[in-house]
């Protein structure tokens, strides 16, 4: 994609996140890391059941320390263009086992691979945050690394 898709989608500053990072690895290597559940799960820190196939919904358990009690993450695989583009939709920050996220809109996560000097440029875009209820966004503060208590400690360390 998506140069044109990116250009036509003029979004607010609160709707999307975009990251671009260059890696000293071939496009096929990076593609394997993104498009296979085993490898994706390794670096993303998630145990994923199923296969990444267009139209499939796969479930993953976050293996990140501190997220052991989080609920399973569902990824709706949207589009796969080998060595070029991979996208899925999910509920961002939907880790609270007591919450029902099913009625909420999902965000779109896209991985775009491009040749770069000496390797591959990976662009990661997550968009659609403006459709997430504000109360849910406020709640996410609590979910972050042990919640606000942990944040205060981090901040104390940072500023002292």
């Amino acid at each position, binding site marked *: 994609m998506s140069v044109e898709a990116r250009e036509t989608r003029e979004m607010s500053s609160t709707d999307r*996140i975009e*990251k671009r*990072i260059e*890696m000293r690895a071939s496009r096929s290597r990076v593609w394997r890391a993104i498009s296979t559940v085993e490898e994706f799960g390794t*670096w993303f820190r998630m145990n994923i059941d199923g296969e990444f196939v267009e139209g499939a919904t796969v479930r993953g358990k976050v293996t990140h320390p501190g997220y052991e009690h989080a609920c399973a993450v569902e990824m709706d695989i949207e589009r796969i263009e080998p060595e070029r583009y991979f996208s899925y939709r999910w509920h961002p920050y939907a880790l609270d086992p007591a919450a029902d996220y099913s009625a909420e809109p999902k965000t779109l996560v896209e991985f775009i691979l491009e040749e770069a000097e000496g390797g591959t440029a*990976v662009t990661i875009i997550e968009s659609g945050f403006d459709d997430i209820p*504000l109360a849910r966004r406020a*709640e996410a503060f609590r979910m972050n690394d042990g919640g606000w208590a942990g*944040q205060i400690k981090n*901040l104390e360390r940072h500023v002292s």
Partner: protein
Amino acid sequence: MSRSRGAAALRAEAVPVFAALGDETRLGLVGRLSVEGPLSITRLSEGTGVTRQAITRHLHALGDAGLVRDERRGRERVWELNLNRLEIARRYLDQISRQWDDAAERLKAFVEDD
């Protein structure tokens, strides 16, 4: 939280906000005020199983952190969010953005490690 400001200013502003939101009841109040707009204490207590007195204390804690403010409307006092929507949205996005930074770094390390 601008980087150009001093650490002391950052701490003075951020710590009370973090602390005020670090409680389920208070977070719930912020959530309701952000969705439903200004509400009276009576309305905010309804269905929570928390007493009006407790709700009042929580609102004052949020007020001290600058997150809510109260206003007299006719015979009633209503509480409203003093934190603008954009601020909530930005902080939320910053948080997810940091997670993507970490994930992207892990992906890079993973593919470069071979």
